[in-house]
């Protein structure tokens, strides 16, 4: 004899479990925004207060409102009506709104097609924890046709540790909304009829009184482009280049296809700071995977490790990503499609990393980061003695010995007399030398080519003192490709180097070898 049995679901436990996944009151807002968007709202107002009786979160929109069925699905589990006006509606399995159960009261007031529905649920969290299903009282009332919209009030939201509404600030909210919710949607890059929504957030003065409210839209916008470096020491910091929307077709090994919509920017610190950021940049920039154009998780290893992900901000949207119930994680990471998406993204980002603009940006950055480091010559006494015995005439083995060589040449009567007055191997311009009565800012190196290898500046240098030139082809390559975005002309006949980066700099080359 055989019987068929269906596994039973304990509804109360299910509700408890799902609602427990949500900790942060901001998640209430994220879910509400998605609902409002799906309801076609053009304006959403969010108000958060911290009252003595507990926190209060109010979300009000001008969307199409809810009827009986919509409201049921709002409170029910796993029963999303997906009633969005477009296919890309965001509600996922109707789990999102279950976060509202984590409170002392849920009040929904909604109007659709001439009917106003008011649903009030008391002590949902307490009841769930007492293993009873919370119920809601529903009142219906006819209202004038043409009005619609939804007003939700959550009172006494039970935050997880460290997530209380009192800890919120406008900055934190703006960052959260732009980074984690549809307020930071990249959808508008990919469609002409993107539904815009104005989002207003008001925090009670007891939470943050630094401003009255925060108004934003539901579009992620990048800082304006600035492809050329600016002035000053960190000339790369406001550089910014947009990489316009691209649709990448991804094919998995088993032949299924999907599309990844990717858009992004590369930029320096100042450019990135124009985005609403909060806390550490390292937690924000890089490459984001998104669904419904809402960022979910980062895949920074799609950027080859020699490029610091911090300079990148890319959002790759794919509807074939599946999310966990609380939308915080991607669920199908072991699927071939996920692997293929990541693969394709790495490939795309490697193109960006090879973009000549990016390389130029990095070289400006390197220049800015130039550290003042002394060349420390570590070698044992014996080795050094040996070296002296091996050489039949004086040749310097480090920069400091070039200084000695120069002094020696003076003693032997070389003209003109050039003396080192100040030598600081750790300084950018490592020496001050005197010729006749004048002091000259100088760079002292074993070979002329070393000056360039060490990435030292030319603007502030009057003389380069070197033992010898080094590889002349290397110098010719410098003349050909330029140095620090200026032009270099080397006139060895006249011991002169001309550097032109808008201004012309004449640099005298002193070859110590020729003076001895």
């Amino acid at each position, binding site marked *: 004899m055989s019987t068929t049995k269906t596994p039973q679901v304990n509804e109360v436990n299910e509700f408890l479990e799902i609602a427990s996944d949500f900790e942060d009151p901001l998640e209430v807002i994220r879910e509400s925004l998605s609902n409002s968007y799906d309801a076609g709202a053009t304006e959403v107002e969010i108000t958060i207060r911290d009252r003595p009786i507990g926190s209060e979160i109010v979300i009000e929109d001008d969307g199409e409102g809810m009827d009986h069925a919509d409201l049921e699905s709002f409170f029910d589990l796993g029963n999303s009506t997906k009633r969005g006006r477009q296919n890309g509606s965001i509600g996922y399995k109707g789990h999102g709104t279950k976060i509202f159960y984590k409170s002392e009261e849920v009040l929904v007031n909604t109007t659709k097609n001439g009917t106003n529905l008011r649903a009030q649920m008391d002590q949902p969290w307490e009841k769930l924890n007492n293993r009873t299903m919370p119920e809601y009282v529903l009142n219906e009332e006819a209202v004038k046709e043409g009005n619609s919209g939804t007003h939700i009030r959550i009172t006494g939201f039970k935050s997880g540790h460290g997530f209380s509404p009192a800890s919120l600030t406008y900055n934190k909210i703006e960052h959260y909304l732009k980074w984690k919710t549809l307020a930071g949607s990249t959808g508008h890059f990919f469609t002409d009829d993107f539904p815009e929504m104005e989002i207003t957030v008001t925090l009670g003065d007891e939470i943050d009184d630094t401003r009255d409210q925060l108004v934003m839209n539901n579009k992620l916008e990048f800082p304006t482009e600035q492809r050329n470096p600016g002035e000053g020491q960190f000339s790369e910091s406001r550089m910014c*280049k947009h990489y316009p929307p691209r649709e990448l077709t991804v094919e998995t090994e088993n032949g299924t296809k999907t599309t990844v919509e990717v858009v992004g920017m590369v930029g320096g610190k100042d450019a990135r700071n124009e985005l609403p950021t909060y806390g550490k940049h390292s937690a924000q920039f890089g490459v984001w995977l998104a669904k419904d154009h809402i960022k979910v998780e980062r895949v920074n290893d799609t950027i080859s490790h020699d490029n610091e992900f911090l300079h990148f901000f890319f959002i790759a949207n794919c509807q074939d990503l599946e999310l966990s119930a609380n939308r915080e994680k991607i669920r199908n990471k072991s699927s071939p499609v996920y692997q293929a998406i990541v693969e394709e993204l790495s*490939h795309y980002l490697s193109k960006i990393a090879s973009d*000549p603009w990016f390389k130029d940006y990095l070289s400006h950055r390197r220049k800015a980061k130039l550290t003042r480091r002394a060349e420390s010559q570590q070698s044992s006494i014996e080795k050094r003695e040996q070296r002296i015995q091996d050489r039949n005439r004086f040749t310097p083995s480090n920069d400091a010995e070039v200084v000695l060589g120069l002094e020696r040449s003076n003693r032997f009567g070389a003209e003109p007399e050039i003396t080192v007055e100040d030598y600081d191997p750790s300084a950018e311009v490592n020496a001050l030398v005197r010729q006749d009565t004048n002091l000259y800012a100088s760079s002292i190196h074993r070979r002329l080519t070393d000056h360039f290898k060490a990435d030292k500046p030319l603007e502030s240098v009057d003389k380069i003192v070197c033992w010898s030139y080094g590889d*002349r*082809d290397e*110098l010719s*390559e410098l003349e050909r490709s330029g140095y620090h975005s200026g032009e270099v002309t080397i006139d060895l006949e006249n011991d002169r180097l001309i550097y032109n980066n808008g201004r012309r700099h004449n640099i005298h080359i002193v070859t110590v070898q020729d003076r001895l």
Partner: protein
Amino acid sequence: MESRSEQFKNDIFEISAEAGDARSGVLRIGDTELSTPNLLPVVNFYAGGTDASLYGGGIHRTIKEFMNGDEVVNGGDYSRYFDGVMTSVASLTDYGISRERYEDYISEPIRERDVFDFDGTLFLDSGGFKFLGDSRLDGSDFEVEVDQEAIVEIQRKLGGDVLVNLDRPIAPDDDYPTRVEKARLTAQNVDEFLNLTSRDDTRYLTLHGYNYSMLDTFLSEVEKVIGRDRVHREFDGVALGSLVPLKDNKEKLITAVSDCREVLADWGFEELPLHVLGISSSAIPLLAAVGADTFDSSSYIHSAINGKYDTSLYNSEPVDDVDFSKCDCQVCSDDVLVKRMEGDAEYQKDKLGAVAMHNLIIQKEEIQRMQSAIQSPGDGELISYIEQSLGREKSMQQHAHRVVNESLGGYF
């Protein structure tokens, strides 16, 4: 001002299409024709041969059998894969050769030998890289002093279509004075080479250097010795050498070849065909994309000798693991040859020779695809070719991007 026809005595190279810096055209030398870009397999025509057959020597012998379409390799016509062939004077040094055999070997031009049915273009390299250490051609019981004169004599006797001067390759760690000295010595050979040959010969000038400045220095040295006039008038092509030590550094190879094209343009040589000596297989599409016209490669043989069956320019499998039905090349479509590759062969050369032939076909087909990508209008085809062929190989991706960025207008 001279007209172009005076400047170049025989326009052997006709460029018919360009995409970025890449170009496609035809090299007409004597009665042979070679479409470019092209890859010349290195063939060792001596390979221990005797008069009885010039077919000595293991796998090399099998390759020559394929060239000929012999019955021993089941009689297929493989001649299209040997439209151009590179051989080096230095190939003689691979064998302990007697004076008699040496004389015998060079007694008749390769293309006129009865035992061969070869009518492709024959490049005859000087083998400078091999004589670098001691300038002797070592036989078992004799020595030929290798100088420019001896090399030209051998090149002529073997009937080379393209002759290359004896050169002094540079090494990556040579310093500036050493490179200048080598350029000067090469220039002296070039001077002699020009005296020993005539305008009826097709002559390639060897260049050595890893970037623009080195190549410019090299050319300047040559000019100092032979004079401006001759450096500009006498050569039909340029062969870029000394790259073998860089063969695993694609970055440097690309720089060397693209800088070489730039130097040639600045010297007024941009229309000369550019051959890249000794660099093969996976670098070819990259280097062709930045403007190299011909290549020579012995990697098809070397892979085979190491038991490697190429599945693309970038990948290979141990020959004993291969499913030959996955390749539809002429070799793998031939049951007799497949059986041999599967191990049913009397000698290794019968097994590995067929593998080498397959490897060569893989390389030749790739260069064929490259040709048609360059020939199709615009740069798009070449970009997508590079994307699909190299861009999907992790190790090649960066280089592919660089070539697209630098030579084909970039992505953004």
